[in-house]
């Protein structure tokens, strides 16, 4: 999986309350609604500034705190190409994988990227590069199961497929 995009940088311990404040929680969302609140806990103008294909670069423990899936889903919906940080909150990591958003652990990356830099990532080759500065690094390999879920577009597609296989198997038994 190959990603290239313009970077937006954020600090350490950015919690999910900031990425998607709870005042925007809804039982159901219209298309584009989650994306319209991305990062407003830090920058109210961010949804207007961010473009499809951009990448987010955070500091240590990015996405810590509350389990809210909207924090990952709003990024996916806004077309974020990848979210990159030295480490992530566990639930945020899981939610990114499950919505099919590349969540890339890259030690020390927060010190190597300035806002607006062009970042290139090859997930299969475990490689990250800052095209402006020439910084390059190897990425810790992602679990193949997680990479596959991301490439599949997330857990919804996976679940749909397994359910369909079960239905076919059940029909097969009836014949």
């Amino acid at each position, binding site marked *: 999986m190959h990603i290239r995009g313009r970077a937006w940088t954020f600090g350490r311990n950015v919690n999910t*309350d900031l990425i998607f404040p709870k005042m925007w929680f809804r039982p159901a969302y219209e298309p584009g609604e989650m994306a319209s609140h991305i990062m407003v806990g830090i920058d109210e103008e961010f949804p207007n500034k961010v473009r499809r294909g951009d990448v987010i670069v955070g500091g240590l423990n990015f996405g810590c705190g509350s*389990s809210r899936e909207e924090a990952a889903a709003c990024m996916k919906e806004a077309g974020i190409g990848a979210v990159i940080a030295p480490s992530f909150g*566990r639930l945020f990591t899981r939610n990114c994988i*499950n919505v099919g958003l590349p969540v890339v652990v890259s030690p020390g990356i927060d010190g190597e990227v300035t806002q607006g830099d062009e970042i290139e990532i090859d997930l299969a080759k475990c490689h990250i590069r800052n095209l402006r500065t020439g910084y390059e690094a190897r990425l810790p390999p992602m679990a193949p199961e997680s990479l596959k879920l991301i490439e599949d577009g997330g857990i919804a597609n996976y679940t*749909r497929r397994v359910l369909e296989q079960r239905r076919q198997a059940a029909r097969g038994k009836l014949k």
Partner: protein
Amino acid sequence: MHAISKIIAYHADRTSVEVGEIVNVAPDYVMLNDRGAARAAELLRRMGGDKVFDPERIVVVFDHHYPAIRPQDAVSQKKTREWIKEQGISKFHAGEGIGHVIFPEKGYAFPGALIFGTDSHTVTNSALGCVATGMGHSDIASYLALGYNWLRVPEVIRFDLHGDFRPGVYAKDIALRIAQLYGEDAAPYLGVEFAGPLTAKMAMSERLVLCNMVIDFGAKTGYIQPDEITAHYLSQRAPDRRWTAFTSDSDADYGSIVELDVSEIEPLVAVPHDLSDVRDASKLNDVRIDEAVFGTCTGGRIEDFRVAAAIMKGRTLAPHTRMMVNPGSREVYMQAMREGLIDIMMQAGAQVGITGCGPCSGCHQGMLAPAENSITNASRNFRGRFGSPEANIYVASSATVAASAIAGHIVSPAESMSD
């Protein structure tokens, strides 16, 4: 293997698992809160699932937005009630309290169990010697459809707690000390076990506070080896529950083992807006308190009410300070009434509200205005969590919160206890 690995292996129908391995597991119980149930039901439909895999394993708890705050919450809760009926889900608790308080109370959490929940503080349950972890809504929807979900077997770090509590010091202060020493990312993706002689004699209520807070160091689950205290707790609450405790092998690997002498810990306070920015309560006397927020899944148990009432008895809140109290469960509320604790707190001037998450979910009454200071026995001081992003949240123990509400500024509870 560590007991956490054994519990995961058992629920993956395997004899062993390795740390770092990803396995599919079937949990014993899955907790859906009001928001989680509404979202997961919708996502389940979108995934093409019409029936939940096993309604017996699902527990629905309305605690965040209940009673409905906005008309849209009422609509969504109505839909969820219909969905529950349609799916044959019988374990439904609305208005009975916070999921993480009632799970142990009602025996849904037990040694050796695997518990998922649509909320980060699901880890609280791990105090009973189980593996309990929060998940996102699509995650849970996938479980609802398939009857399993993926889990990575975590490495485990252990905190061995020694020494004794000084007066005015509680498990909450231990959790804050760990945040202070090791940061909000002390245990990313890890299992956190609490052991040592102090843990062995710690009451279940205090163990629940420790394990509640592990998510706020980044952990996947807590763990405390089940013992007589665990067995006694369960026999009082779920005498019919059958359970098996798993035990770590003597050669189980730990990522690290940290010795912590609790006798050195003072009453502590996490200051805005970072849980790892922790100071001694006694050095924060110049912080004026506008509102005390008391309750939540961290500090809403009967023991918290006993501690607070002992401090507040015969006293009144500082004139410029208000106090919002939300009991963690109906059982806690009724017990606190029977013991006269609610009386004491109300006579002191506290507002006692409904059971549930209260202002900590950022939803119920008790919101803050810009530049106001709040002290709370909840777990998080994130910017904007109690209303205005310009407000300040200080996180402390139940005793420190009660003592500070009386004083009108932050004080160490040790001072008011020696009065």
